[in-house]
């Protein structure tokens, strides 16, 4: 039956490749109940702080069960404006320059749908989050991958951008700090990228979802650089820093005309983000900063632990400046990322994700998420060491 039904599936969806993550998810799922330690997740191990959950419960008790403004609750947009000014140094008007979305994923989809004509080219650095390229394909635009390298700690360089640029490029997609590499750019690197964007008249979509989890130095938003606010859509959300992945709540800030275009798509497709999630997000912004700092400090110590252990074991690993991912190389031990990930899972029951799930430039690396307890990380690293040291044909 499925064969005959296929004829109704749009061709650009039918040709969309399956996520590499999905394959690995199924492999791990088969080992349920076998004491697998998973470093394969993409979310915090912390539960949403209780005061945030309580705010959602109170909202329900008060009968807050209706639609909100398409742009999101004005109280939340005001809180977002204050937060973005304080933490990123950019000013947005709550009335017309901020839209609350169903996670950054929706915000990104809105951007592509609102800004891309068929055939437009979107540059993005790779390895990258799994949905970037498919989301670009879904609006009949073309993705132009710009490689980042371990030698640069996976920072995006203006040189690599220039080398990858082709006529027709309209948008640059950034995710700094980056999932899966943890790489980010310092101010000087960002200034060079900003200059390139101004030169080529690129619109920047900046997904800064991991910015609060920056361990070394301070995070700089490209939107805060001179001349960039007018050509940047700043994307952010609550999932990572506030441990709120399941709430699906994020936001986009940008020039009025761009937010207005995104709002058009959003009002017809999503209407608004869930009011309960918006109420929780408001509480997180008003009273959750201490939680963010506590979680960040723990991630910092976990990062130092896994990076040190990976390098001791022989898995060359740069120190990710942000996010909760390490992206060690398997090349030094003479294994492909796929063989390493599958072998490690089967022999030692530790799950990591092959780097190629995040694009071809992830070859020779695996993503290991350190959003798990010290105890688990210590055992996982010991198992990885046994795997690396075990003789194999």
């Amino acid at each position: 039956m499925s064969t005959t039904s296929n004829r109704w599936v749009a061709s650009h969806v039918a040709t969309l490749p399956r996520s590499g993550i999905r394959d690995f998810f199924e492999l791990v799922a088969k080992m349920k109940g076998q004491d697998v330690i998973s470093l394969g997740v993409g979310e915090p191990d912390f539960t949403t702080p209780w005061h945030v959950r309580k705010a959602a419960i109170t909202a329900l008790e008060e009968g807050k069960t209706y639609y909100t403004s398409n742009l999101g609750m004005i109280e939340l947009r005001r809180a977002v404006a204050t937060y973005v000014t304080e933490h990123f140094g950019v000013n947005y008007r709550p009335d017309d320059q901020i839209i609350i979305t169903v996670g950054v994923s929706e915000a990104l989809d809105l951007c592509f749908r609102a800004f891309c004509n068929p055939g437009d080219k979107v540059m993005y650095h790779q390895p990258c989050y799994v949905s970037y390229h498919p989301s670009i394909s879904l609006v009949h635009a073309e993705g132009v991958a710009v490689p980042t390298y371990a030698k640069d700690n996976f920072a995006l360089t203006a040189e690599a951008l220039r080398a990858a640029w082709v006529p027709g490029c309209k948008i640059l997609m950034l995710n700094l700090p980056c999932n899966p590499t943890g790489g980010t750019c310092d101010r000087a690197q960002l200034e060079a990228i900003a200059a390139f964007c101004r030169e080529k008249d690129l619109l920047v979509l900046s997904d800064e979802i991991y910015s609060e989890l920056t361990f070394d130095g301070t995070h700089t938003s490209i939107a805060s650089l001179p001349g960039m606010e007018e050509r940047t859509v700043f994307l952010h959300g609550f999932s990572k820093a506030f441990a709120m992945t399941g709430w699906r709540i994020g936001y986009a800030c940008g020039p009025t005309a761009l937010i207005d275009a995104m709002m058009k798509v959003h009002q017809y497709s999503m209407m608004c983000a869930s009011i309960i999630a918006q109420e929780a997000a408001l509480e997180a912004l008003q009273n959750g900063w201490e939680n963010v700092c506590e979680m960040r400090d723990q991630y910092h110590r976990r990062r130092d632990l896994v990076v040190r252990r990976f390098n001791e074991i022989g898995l060359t690993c740069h120190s990710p400046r942000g996010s909760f991912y390490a992206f060690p190389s398997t090349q030094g031990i003479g294994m492909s990322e796929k063989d390493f990930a599958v072998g490690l899972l089967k022999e030692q029951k530790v799950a990591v994700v092959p780097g190629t799930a995040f694009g071809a430039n992830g070859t020779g690396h695996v993503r290991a998420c350190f959003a798990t307890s010290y105890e688990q990380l210590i055992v996982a690293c010991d198992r990885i060491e046994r795997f690396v040291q075990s003789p194999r044909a």
Partner: protein
Amino acid sequence: MNPVLKLLLEGGRLTTAQMAQVAGISVAEVEQHLEQLKKDKIFLGWRPVLDLSREAAAGAAVRAVIEVKLTPERGGGFNNLAQRLAKFDEVESCHLMSGGYDLLVFVNAPTLQKAAAFVSEKLSTLGGVLSTSTHFLLRSYKEGGFLLDGGEGSGDRLNVSP
């Protein structure tokens, strides 16, 4: 801050070997840090966090919170009295408080009678004690940072996600 103290403040239950791994120092160094914290009287000792309501053999131990009003002593204020009171084995913890009473005393006793006897014979007869108000603990919901009814976990978290 002492790196071991940082880990202790997180409230985990790491062994010294695990602390060494996390802090990136040797086990000997962890022990040195612990020794230093002991010398500085910051680290006083380890105590397990137990939910004895689940252990029948522990018997029906009684816990009480006692509000104590005192007459401060000339010279010593509340300190001398509080220290004297704190020395009783039954006293688990003892704090000087702001507000309507002076000391808040947590007491452990094997039976109700023994708890009552502690209050009437030892505590209230202590010179300087003006009055006591005893509250018995009926049920505990959280102890030392642990939720007692199972708590919550990330059991439903997907094993692999983007």
